[in-house]
């Protein structure tokens, strides 16, 4: 019998995207009861961890090198090579604790994938996080999960308890002499806590105002100690890399942005859902074949490919574009969290943008003036336009506001708020102008 790691198989290299329909899922395989540690172990679970901790084949550097070679680009939005980030940790000093922060805040609108990991494959994430702690010589992992996920927090806690009982977490893991703890922390409703330094402030029991960088978390993180932060999905890839090798993992999907992806597809499609496929899928395949096409026989108008903050694409920009950083760059957008929102021809783009802007206005922590004021002005100006009281110069005003926000604040929330405005106004300018011209007619007549 072939040895499968979960559903993956290290002998099967998946490098022909034409065959995406034959892709075998490894993050969220269809194995009933996989959230249970018995089922997980029966399917090869915790073998990677066992190998790392007990075989003597893996030292810190080797784990980090393997993960770096795989090029797991962070799934929390920024797409930074996880192994490279791990290598920024300073050398271990005795008596100085170090921490892993696991980002399960999942609050970027359009993103709904980490929730599936909590529910269907929590041990894959736990295994990855503990291996990460081993590699970076950390003492504990803090798993920060948004408070709205109360039910999924309970599921995660149950999985953590099971892993403690089996000795995969805790004192002297598998007799290796290494002690690593894992704690689940419940948020309480604030998007900003997904920003890495805000998350740390929140964990420290403060108002979660993002910190200025530098110093970066690797130098000054949780409780001022060296810390690395990764997204939940990012960490869930780690056991797959260790078990099957960086070469196998990075052969999946787009060469420069490789690996399995969890595509969260929502909006006006027949079959919304969270789908696991290789990176680098054609947007058109995802929309029309995976998600079953546009509802009610309507036509596609726009796609927001990676969560609400990434630039929107018009339907006519999709041809040949794939879900990886290089391809999306050619049309001026990003992978983000791969949470795709599909909008049909009936969508009022101005109203859609108002709601997105309201979100950022609501979630701005208020620390920086350009962000606090700018997000509010977006909403005001856009509402004015929508109500038929806008002027042409309002569009320039919106773009100027973006200039005052982008790259000028403590954290990237201001950028996240400005990108949708800038790109929607530019790419759907006619829809804004139509509302403004209509107002002109009213005033002149």
């Amino acid at each position, binding site marked *: 019998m072939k040895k499968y790691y979960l559903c993956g198989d290290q002998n099967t290299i998946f490098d022909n995207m034409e065959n995406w329909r034959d892709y075998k899922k490894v993050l969220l395989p269809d194995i009933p009861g996989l959230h249970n540690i018995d089922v997980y172990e029966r399917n090869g679970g915790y073998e990677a961890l066992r190998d790392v901790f007990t075989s003597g084949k893996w030292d810190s550097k080797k784990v980090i090198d393997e993960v770096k070679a795989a090029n797991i680009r962070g799934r929390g939005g920024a797409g930074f090579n996880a192994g490279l980030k791990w290598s920024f940790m300073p050398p271990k000093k005795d008596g100085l604790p170090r921490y892993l922060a696991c980002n399960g805040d999942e609050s970027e609108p359009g*993103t709904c994938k*980490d*929730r599936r990991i909590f529910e269907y494959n929590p041990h894959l994430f736990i295994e990855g996080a503990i291996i990460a702690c081993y590699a970076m010589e950390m003492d504990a992992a803090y798993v920060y999960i948004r*408070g709205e996920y109360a039910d999924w927090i309970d599921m995660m806690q149950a999985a953590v308890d099971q892993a403690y009982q089996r000795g995969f977490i805790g004192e002297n893991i598998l007799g290796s002499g290494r002690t690593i703890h894992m704690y689940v922390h*419940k948020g309480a409703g604030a998007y900003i806590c997904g920003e890495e330094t805000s998350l740390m402030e929140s964990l420290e*029991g403060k108002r979660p105002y993002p910190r200025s960088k530098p110093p970066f978390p690797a130098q000054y993180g949780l409780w001022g100690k060296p810390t690395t932060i990764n997204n939940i999905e990012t960490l869930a890839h780690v056991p797959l890399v260790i078990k099957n090798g960086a070469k196998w993992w990075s052969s999946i999907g787009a060469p420069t942005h490789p690996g399995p992806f969890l595509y969260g597809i*929502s909006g006006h499609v027949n079959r919304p859902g969270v789908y696991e496929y290789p990176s680098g899928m054609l947007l058109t395949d995802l929309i029309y074949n995976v998600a079953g096409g546009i509802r009610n026989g309507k036509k596609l108008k726009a796609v927001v490919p990676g969560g609400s903050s990434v630039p929107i694409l018009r339907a006519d920009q999709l041809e040949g574009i794939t879900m990886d950083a290089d391809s999306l760059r050619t049309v001026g957008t990003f992978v983000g969290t791969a949470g795709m929102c599909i909008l049909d021809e009936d969508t009022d783009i101005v109203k859609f943008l108002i*709601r997105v802007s309201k979100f950022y206005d609501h979630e701005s922590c208020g620390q920086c003036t350009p962000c606090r004021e700018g997000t509010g002005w977006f909403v005001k100006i856009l509402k004015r336009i929508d109500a038929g009281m806008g002027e042409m110069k309002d569009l320039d005003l919106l773009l100027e506001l973006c200039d005052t926000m982008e790259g000028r604040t403590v954290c990237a929330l201001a950028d996240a708020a400005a990108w949708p405005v800038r790109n929607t106004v530019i790419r759907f300018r006619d829809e804004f102008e139509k509302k403004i011209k209509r107002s002109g007619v009213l005033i002149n007549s």
Partner: protein
Amino acid sequence: MEYTFTQAEVQEIQKHVAKYPDRHSAIMPALWIAQEKFGWLSADAIKLVADTLDVPYARVYGVATFYTMYLKQDCPPNLIEVCTCFTCGECGGKERMAFLKDYLQTNEKGRSADGQFWIREAECLGACDTAPVGQISNRRFVHNLTDEKLRETIERLRRGEVLSFEAIPLNDQTPLG
């Protein structure tokens, strides 16, 4: 009302304290415990948390007032939140919200006349693939909301039923195009 924690609650809070190198980190979990017990976070409840953890009141107050899920007012027993953000906003969330206002005859503070319900708009709940999505009293998600489903949910809450967890299966069962 007397604001004290039972021995068991204090022990639970101490368990949280033990997870972190600094007891201030237990403010959030302790606030959750206080809110579960008292229904909302009054000044007295916040003071109790501060005293139990031996941290300044202002620090706890600052945390409690930052987050939307910590309730700073005495509220009706059932909170119904409907996501009107991003995807949900384009898939019926706004319409469901309008239905709720009408069905429950809520006032400008979102409270129903019978004092049993209050409603508010949610930001993205992280379940956009089942838009529109609702959440009941900071816990149960209600997916793929329709007016009918909201009506049923309200009736069940009126009867005092505990809503069960609605599992959304991993998709991919239907044939691909």
